């Protein structure tokens, strides 16, 4: 009876408690409820899931999420949990701007990370600058965003065309030959890349045998391949991207042109190589990273990544996802050492920041004058199917270049950074 009554009362108590709880949860304004918990730091992820860069965009995102989850596991930053809001930027500037606007206005993000196409990165960095929102360009390799289009709030984490070309120059001459021929994809990226290539090949005294423009939408390269064959270069440098590159490789392979000369595709993201498959992904290229590198921390990072993304299309970290990971991780670290999310302080914390555990031989540096992350590069070539340990083990590093050699010197920088005063205060 007593027990019974006791039990009853307890149940009654429980009921009321639950009832009140539910009531509060239901009617109580959620802002109030949220205020009880420590306000989370919200990071907006702008990664393509549709459009040209869909694959890379998703790889990028995997890296970021992994980094965020690791910090949350350690109890977040400044004791605050980290939330992320993702928007598909669709490789489309208009969409990207709209979605970024939504992240800023509605989701009240504190920071924004993510870009592959320079067409998306540029407007996003402008938008960010106007709000004072710190924006990390994780994977776009256009060099304009750290020159004419540089912004105070904008940090660029991938190596750019100039660096790739600059790194390639000596390596090509040393390893492959001096007579070179160039194919240029006839749009902005291609022409920038070729400009950089030419500049740097001149520096090392290589001899240009000729250039062919590849219009967008080109599917048939027989004429170009013919021209190359008759020019007899030792090196063919192809600044050709997207489906055109795929088609070019197809036919070069079909016509046996891949044996005519050493083919160099200056910059190449791993997801694109996967699309291509080892057989047709012949030739040399430049890259920032691959999980097969034998450097401190790589193994552990790779394990963690594999564990988290076992079911992903590309279950191993590559140059894209590692960029996303490192960028995010360093942002959170910067917040930690700034002790606030106030943009000015975080920017100060970032400028000049040196990243030692970047899974590479040499540390990277966030260069204060153009916000480019100066980092080392590798000259690599695609492995033959026989040499591959597993499906993803496609890349064989041949040589490497130290950051200070690879990155453009301040003297040639075209960046006129806004002053802090000219950058609206955001967050904190």
């Amino acid at each position, binding site marked *: 009876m007593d027990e019974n009554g006791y039990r009853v009362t307890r149940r009654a108590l429980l009921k009321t408690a639950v009832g009140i709880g539910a009531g509060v949860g239901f009617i109580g304004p959620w802002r109030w409820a949220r205020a009880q918990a420590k306000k989370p730091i919200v990071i907006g992820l702008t990664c393509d899931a*549709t459009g040209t860069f*869909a694959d890379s965009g998703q790889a990028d995102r995997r890296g970021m999420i992994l980094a965020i989850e690791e910090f949350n596991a350690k109890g977040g930053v400044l004791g605050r949990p980290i939330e992320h809001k993702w928007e598909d930027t669709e490789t489309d500037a208009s969409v990207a701007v709209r979605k970024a606007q939504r992240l800023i206005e509605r989701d009240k993000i504190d920071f924004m990370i993510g870009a592959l196409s320079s067409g998306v990165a540029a407007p996003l960095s402008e938008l960010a600058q106007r709000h004072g929102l710190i924006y990390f360009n994780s994977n776009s390799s256009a060099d304009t965003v750290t020159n004419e289009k540089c912004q105070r709030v904008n940090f660029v984490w991938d190596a750019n065309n100039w660096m790739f070309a600059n790194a390639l120059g000596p390596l090509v001459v040393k390893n492959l030959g001096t007579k070179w021929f160039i194919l240029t994809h006839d749009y902005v990226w291609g022409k920038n890349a070729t400009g950089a290539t030419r500049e740097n090949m001149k520096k090392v005294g290589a001899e240009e045998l000729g250039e062919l*423009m590849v*219009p967008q*939408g080109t599917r048939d390269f*027989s*004429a170009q391949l013919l021209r190359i064959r008759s020019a007899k270069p030792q090196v063919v440098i192809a600044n050709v991207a997207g489906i055109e590159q795929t088609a070019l490789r197809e036919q070069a392979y079909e*016509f046996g042109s891949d044996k005519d000369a050493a083919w160099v595709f200056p910059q190449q993201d791993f997801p694109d190589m996967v699309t291509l498959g080892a057989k047709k992904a012949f030739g040399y290229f430049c890259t920032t990273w691959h999980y097969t590198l034998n450097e401190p921390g790589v193994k552990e990072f790779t394990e963690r990544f594999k564990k988290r993304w076992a079911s992903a299309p590309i279950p191993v970290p590559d140059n894209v996802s590692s960029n996303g990971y490192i960028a995010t991780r360093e942002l959170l670290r910067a917040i930690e050492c700034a002790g606030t999310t106030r943009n000015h302080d975080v920017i100060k914390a970032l400028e000049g920041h040196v990243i030692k555990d970047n899974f590479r031989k040499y540390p990277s540096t966030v260069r204060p004058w153009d916000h480019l992350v100066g980092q080392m590069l590798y000259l690599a070539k695609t492995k033959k199917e026989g040499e591959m340990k597993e499906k993803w083990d496609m890349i064989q590093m041949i040589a490497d270049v130290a950051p200070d050699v690879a990155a453009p010197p301040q003297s040639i920088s075209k960046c006129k950074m806004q002053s802090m005063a000219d950058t609206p205060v955001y967050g904190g």
Partner: protein
Amino acid sequence: MPDLAELVTQLLNGVVLGLLYALIALGFMLILGTMEIINFSHGVLFALGGYSALALGPHVGWWGALLLAPVIVGGVGLLLELGVRRTYGRDPLFGLLFTFGAALALEEIIRIVWGPRGYTVSAPAFVAGPFHLGFLFYSRYRVLVAVLAVLLLGLVWAFLERSPYGAMIKAGAHDHEMVRALGINLTRLRSLVFALGAAMAGVAGVIAAPMWSLKPTVGAEAVMPAFIVVVIGGIGSFSGAVIAGLLLGLTSGLSNLLVPRGSILVMYLLMTAVLLWRPRGLRGQKSMLEL
């Protein structure tokens, strides 16, 4: 300066391309002429052809795919027609918009099934690699493409000129009474034509896939030349389509050689020029589509 070998190569490419364009355009024009519907989904049906070939190839081989893919795409066409049907006789805009919507949906379906990335389709083994003709080498597969295209064009021509259906199709939208008088079920005729047009897009897609490789948006790249071919050739003219196709192909071939950057734009300039010279296109008759 381009040498002879390149000139020849590009001219050959031009012809191959032109025949392909003509093929794509004809399927498009069948529907346009018969039902006065601008079938915007023509491009994505083309893509669908390529993708289904990609999927079928390993199982039924390339020839099998060449035969099966059009059937599949034709089927999709039949389904589409069930919706398009409701726009007949209404403002032409509705047919256009319906197929436009269909194009978006189908493209997204392709994206869901095959992913956003591009695929390369390898040519059947027996035509892999190039011919080596001393001073130039030319892709065997392209020769095959040309042959197939000519064959198919011939078939279509025979169908239009020699079969009873041809007459009805040509009478088409402009003279329903006549069609009825001939005692044909107009509804069935229209479904047939739509399926046929779709199938032609599909087969073109199969043929083109190894040359152009596949990505979800490949359809858009294919359908615009078709539009231009129709505008240049004149609506409802078989010969017009073939002539315009070849004209377009050669133009883009040559411009590829001389002004690579403008090679796509040149097509449109050509179109504008033709329109200025002959407002109805090369072989177009005055129709109720204009003043």
